[in-house]
């Protein structure tokens, strides 16, 4: 048998590798890359789906930056993201710490907290629509029982955004909690014992040993939660439709309104790219900050 020279073998291997990943590559190119680039192109045009797109350059971006509704939507989105991410991580951390002991029915608790994550957001939003009902909902029943006159969760401009925040936290808590729990369980017992032997109390152990060891998980969870929060749409679409008075209009919902209610595709695409730049910027910021607060053994 003739021996094949090494260079040819390597080339053959590479050729085969390329052929084998070609289906995946084509899929990503056609369904991910092409639409993303097309969207960039559309953001530089004006199109209402019925005619042909008309080139307008950066006009969509300029109009957006000059629109007062844009600043309102941005502020509300940032508010929503900040509130839901902080509450979510805080609660998830507390629950993960509480579940990180050899307690009975640990699997049951984990399932219970994770259940909202695997439920469809549509079902969850409809359920919470009933929970938030000002007359018959259990939430207001509880509040009225405590003496307060009751809150119109979805129709009061002051509370509507908080209603969406709570729904979002409820939905994603389990996911964050599971990741943090896994991170907690990966902390070597030896470190915690060493801290105990040195006389550290519970709070000191938590602050000086647990949190730093948990920082890689916290870093992961904060990026995921942030990206997810910026993309909030279903809850707003189902519960408040951006109202009342545009108080719950967040970026992705406004994008939907522009694209499919006003048929302004150029503007909607421009919004999508602004969102892309924001998320990219925040992620890069987090990567840069990583070196300063994430500890690796």
């Amino acid at each position: 048998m003739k021996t094949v020279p090494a260079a040819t073998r390597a080339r053959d291997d590479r050729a085969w590798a390329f052929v084998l990943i070609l289906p995946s590559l084509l899929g990503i190119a056609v369904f991910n890359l092409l639409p993303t680039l097309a969207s960039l192109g559309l953001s530089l045009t004006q199109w209402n789906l019925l005619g042909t797109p008309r080139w307008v350059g950066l006009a969509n971006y300029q109009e957006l930056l000059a629109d007062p509704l844009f600043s309102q939507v941005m502020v509300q989105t940032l508010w929503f993201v900040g509130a839901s991410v902080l509450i979510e991580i805080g609660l998830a951390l507390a629950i993960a710490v509480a579940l990180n002991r050899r307690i009975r029915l640990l699997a049951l608790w984990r399932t219970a907290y994770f259940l909202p994550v695997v439920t469809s957001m549509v079902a969850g939003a409809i359920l919470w629509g009933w929970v938030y009902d000002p007359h018959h909902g259990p939430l207001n029943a509880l509040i009225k029982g405590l003496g307060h006159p009751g809150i119109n969760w979805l129709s009061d401009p002051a509370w509507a955004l908080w209603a969406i925040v709570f729904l979002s936290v409820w939905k994603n808590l389990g996911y964050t909690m599971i990741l943090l729990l896994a991170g907690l369980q990966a902390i070597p017992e030896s470190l915690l014992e060493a801290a105990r032997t040195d006389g550290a109390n519970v709070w000191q152990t938590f602050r000086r040993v647990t949190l730093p060891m948990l920082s890689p998980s916290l870093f992961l969870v904060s990026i995921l939660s942030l990206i997810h929060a910026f993309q909030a749409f279903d809850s707003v679409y189902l519960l408040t439709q951006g109202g009342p008075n545009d108080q719950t209009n967040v970026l992705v919902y406004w994008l939907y309104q522009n694209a499919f209610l006003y048929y302004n595709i150029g503007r909607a695409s421009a919004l999508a790219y602004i969102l892309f730049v924001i998320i990219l910027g925040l992620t890069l910021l987090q990567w840069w900050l990583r070196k300063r607060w994430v500890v690796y053994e």
Partner: protein
Amino acid sequence: MRRLLCCLLLLAGCAAPQKGLTLATWGSLEEVETLKQVLADFRRAHPAVPVELIHIPDNYFQKLHLLIASGNTPDVIFTNNWQLPVYAEHGVLRDMAQFQPEFSHFHPQAVEAMRYRGKVYALPRDLSNLVLYYNQERFQDRGVPLPHHWRFDDVIRYGKQLVGAEQWAISFDPRPLFWLPYLWSGGGELFDSELTRTRLAEPASVAALQFYADLRHKHHLAPSLIEQGGATPAQLFAQGKLAMFVSGRWSVPAFQKLPFKWGVAAFPEGPGGSVVDADASGWAISRACQDPDDAWQLVQFLAGKSAASRFAASGLIIPARRDVPFEGGDVFVKALATGRPIRTPANWNEVQQAIDKGLEPLWRGEKSAAEVVPALAKRVDLLL
């Protein structure tokens, strides 16, 4: 090898695109059942023209936009007078004049509703207007005369006697379809005839809008948003919580099974008379259609006497044809005499959103019409 080739050729023949028409429509299941029967009749009469029905029960116009954008424009499109200008303006629909249609059998308002910039783009199926449904038992319980030939003052005067705990006199819906009767009957108007300016800022219009808002917040005759909770006005009427309910013909089949006696009356009379909308829906042919003559056969059949009779028999609609018997009651037909079709600009979707947002503080009782309308009128004028 030859056999394989023959099979492949046969398959290729089967795969060739068939001549046929696509028809897009909205509608409840019952409506679509009736339509399917009509299409079965058509198939018997024209076996060479297969018709594929595209039923879009929800978000119809959004999906239609997307079908058009992706190059799959249906051949025959069911549309209404609110959205017709959008599609006509962008060249999606064919001018019916090329088929030389006969309009004598239709109510003139129906044909007018299908006209944009002088050209008729669709053959009408039905006329739609608003009447006042009332809960007869509630009126009798409170000793209030039935609301026939009422004026706006009567609504206020008698309405106060119809109110109770968790019970209101009249329905409230913030959508334009439902406040236009108040606007028109109050002597106001939405757009000028050229659709270049809004007439909402005129004193009569402002007063009319304020009257509607007052029903909720000054006289407490209509439930506020919070009082309504999650229920729709139709549900509230069916639950017996509303004495009167402004709605169209489409509520009749759903209300057949109500536990109380109800009737219909004409919309109350204001300073401008008793004026409600006279909207119409009809079938248009798209410009992208490859077989316009076949499509014309289909549209003629759908708007023809036998099909219209089937639709009218279901009780859901007022037929646009004059030669189809309609047993729905004089109230609907009389309202047609003074009815106006709503005229919308080609960018109606954006204009409607601006109007809805601008009027929202008024419907919530936070501002008065005089405060809200001037800024809104400026914004709408910019869009027009």
